[in-house]
């Protein structure tokens, strides 16, 4: 009987899955969605099959775009997995298993290298390395090897409604005190002064924690010092935290919005007069409010301390060490994110705005040459701070716990920072001895 045969095969396959779980240990990974893994064995046997994972970009058309690129590639059968929601957790469990991604977007950290989860990509970038910014090379490099090919460079800017600032008679803020004053001045019953995220920019879940870096950069500090010591413990950093708390307590920032900081809706729908958001949102904002907006970087702490800042973020393509065909995975990344200038320009500038990582491409991208987009590009070139692969997720959790407690719960600054410092030092000791 045909049906029974199928049933038995399914049962055997199920048992096999269990056995594979025992052998390789991806028990946690079994929780992931089932669209990868078992199903990719069929079809064209001559081509390598590649699973490529993306987080969900918010702008319409982005998913169709990456699916189109995948279809254009003829050397491998590329299957795109688009992940709404908690991409990081899904990726982390995917990387533990053989049914995870071959190619995925993320940014590297030292633990992924130490535990052999990712593959160096120096060979495919060697010829064009000088065409990437120093910041991108820094955030891609662990122990002298490059593990990520930047796909998009992202940055944050402080968007403000020109008309509202003019009406209140204020200028775009250049210091944190001016920012707090502006936020208060612009605050009305139904329109808050400033939106920096429903988490007040300090709690990294669902893309939150957008200001964890700026708090330090605005006073000239950083997560880690150049010689890998905790950099968030300086007196200036503590003052900066006190200011963030003052901003939170001013009752002038928008909290509990239906969308978060990375989505421009709160700004465009008049829930806040200013918003910290990504460059990616600029086309949407232009469409909604026309010319009635401008951008500035996150302000310096004061006229004498620190300087303006923004993050040099974004996403890069990486290869899992568990990929069934590492060479095919590398070849795909090389084809799409190094050589295929047309698709890179399309992905960086046709939907949301990103800075194309290839300097040669960024320089001639016409959409970034005028208006607020040009202002943003200048901010990026002057003030963007690169991520540091030595700053691991565990360190970030400890630091963010402190930031959340200080800013949102009013906890003692010295004690909270000391707790985080202890946790980060333990991590640094584990990694560097």
């Amino acid at each position, binding site marked *: 009987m045909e049906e029974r045969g199928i049933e038995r095969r399914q049962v055997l396959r199920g048992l096999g899955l269990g056995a594979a*779980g025992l052998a390789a*240990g991806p028990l946690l990974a079994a929780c992931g969605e089932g669209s990868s893994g078992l199903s990719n064995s069929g079809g064209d046997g001559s081509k390598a099959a590649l699973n490529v994972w993306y987080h969900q970009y918010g702008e319409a058309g982005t998913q169709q775009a990456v699916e189109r690129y995948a279809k254009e590639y003829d050397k491998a059968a590329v299957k795109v997995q688009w992940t709404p929601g908690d991409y990081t957790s899904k990726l982390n469990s995917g990387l533990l298993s053989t049914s995870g991604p071959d190619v995925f977007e993320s940014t590297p950290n030292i633990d992924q290298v130490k535990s052999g989860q990712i593959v160096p990509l120096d060979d495919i970038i060697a010829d064009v390395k000088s065409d990437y910014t120093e910041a991108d090379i820094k955030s891609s490099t662990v122990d002298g090897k490059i593990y990520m090919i930047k796909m998009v460079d992202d940055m944050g800017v402080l968007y403000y409604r020109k008309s509202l600032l003019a009406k209140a008679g204020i200028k775009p803020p250049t210091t944190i005190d001016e920012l707090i004053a502006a936020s208060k001045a612009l605050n009305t019953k139904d329109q808050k002064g400033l939106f920096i995220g429903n988490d007040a920019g300090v709690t990294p879940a669902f893309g939150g924690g957008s200001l964890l870096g700026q708090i330090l950069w605005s006073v000239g500090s950083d997560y880690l010092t150049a010689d890998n010591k905790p950099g968030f413990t300086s007196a200036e950093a503590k003052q900066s935290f006190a200011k963030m708390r003052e901003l939170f307590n001013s009752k002038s920032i928008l909290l*509990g919005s*239906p969308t978060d900081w990375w989505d421009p809706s709160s700004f465009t729908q008049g829930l806040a007069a200013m918003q910290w958001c990504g460059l990616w949102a600029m086309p949407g904002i232009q469409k909604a409010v026309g010319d009635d907006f401008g951008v500035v970087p996150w302000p310096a702490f004061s006229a004498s301390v620190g300087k303006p800042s923004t993050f040099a973020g974004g996403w890069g393509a990486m290869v899992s060490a568990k990929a069934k065909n590492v060479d095919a995975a590398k070849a795909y990344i090389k084809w799409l994110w190094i050589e295929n200038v047309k698709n890179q320009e399309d992905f960086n500038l046709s939907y949301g705005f990103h800075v194309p990582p290839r300097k040669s491409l960024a320089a001639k991208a016409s959409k970034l040459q005028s208006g607020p987009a040009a202002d943003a590009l200048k901010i990026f070139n002057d003030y963007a701070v690169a991520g540091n692969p030595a700053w691991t997720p565990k360190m970030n959790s400890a630091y963010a716990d402190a930031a959340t407690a200080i800013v949102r719960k009013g906890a003692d600054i010295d004690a909270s920072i000391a707790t985080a410092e202890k946790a980060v030092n333990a991590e640094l000791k584990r990694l560097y001895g």
Partner: protein
Amino acid sequence: MATTEVAAPPRGSRGRGRIGGVAPAFWLFVGPFLAGLVIFVYVPIIWSVILSFSRGQNTVTPGDWVGLDNYIDLLKPGPFLDSLVTFTVFAAFIVPLTFALALGLAMLLNRIRFMRTFFRSVFFLPTACSYVVASLVWKLSIFNGVRFGLANTVLGWFGVDNIAWLATTDPPWYWLVIVTVRLWLQLGFYMILFIAGLQRIPRDLYEAADVDGAGRGWQTFRYITFPQLRPTSVAVLLLLLINAYQAFDEFFNLLGNSSFARPPLVYLYYTAQGNQDYGHGTAGAVILALLIMIVTLAQGRIFGFGRAE
């Protein structure tokens, strides 16, 4: 944790000889279930216990043994113990509240003479709703922080300013959101348990009490209903407590990784899946499992749960 036990085969009762002996029949029915239980419950638990003694950074393959270090780290004052405090606060709100309201509703619905099924269904329906869906409804439409949120609209009629429910820590309005969503979701289920319990109380007890002159309201409840409900009450209490220990969905969806209100499972989730620190993650899971077991056993001892009546 899985408290389900494999039932002993019905020896020599009835149906003997139909499937050629009891043992094959036993394995036929129990085998698949047992296999599933072993593969998806016991193996992961044992795996976790083993992994909890290793570093487990960015890997779930045991190795790089660290002894009891993971456990010691977690039991020092820090985020894990804070999360247990969060749980305790949460349980202190949700357990008595659900218990009292479920019992009250059950007694009301047990009394009314019309539209009984309708009301029972209405109160039971939220149980069928997913925690994630309910959390999002609470977060995005009822308790959002802007003017068009339901709660803020209603308050607005009385001239009250918009409240950012989930972000306000002083006063801690987020507890209101967290507690109401769970209350709405689980109330109906416990109400049904209580209704079942109420219906098992023999009517003649009430008649006897009536004859003896017991007052209809409080006295009857105090001396007849409540004592007779004891097995149900203990079960409900136990289930509520275990559920509170395992709180995850609404905290995760409503508050993310907020260090000020993070129950144990949310902390462990971010430790394991976020930081890829599977050593500490599994050690925490083992501690939590042990805690639940101890509480369950202690409660069984004290209230006699599971003992023959």
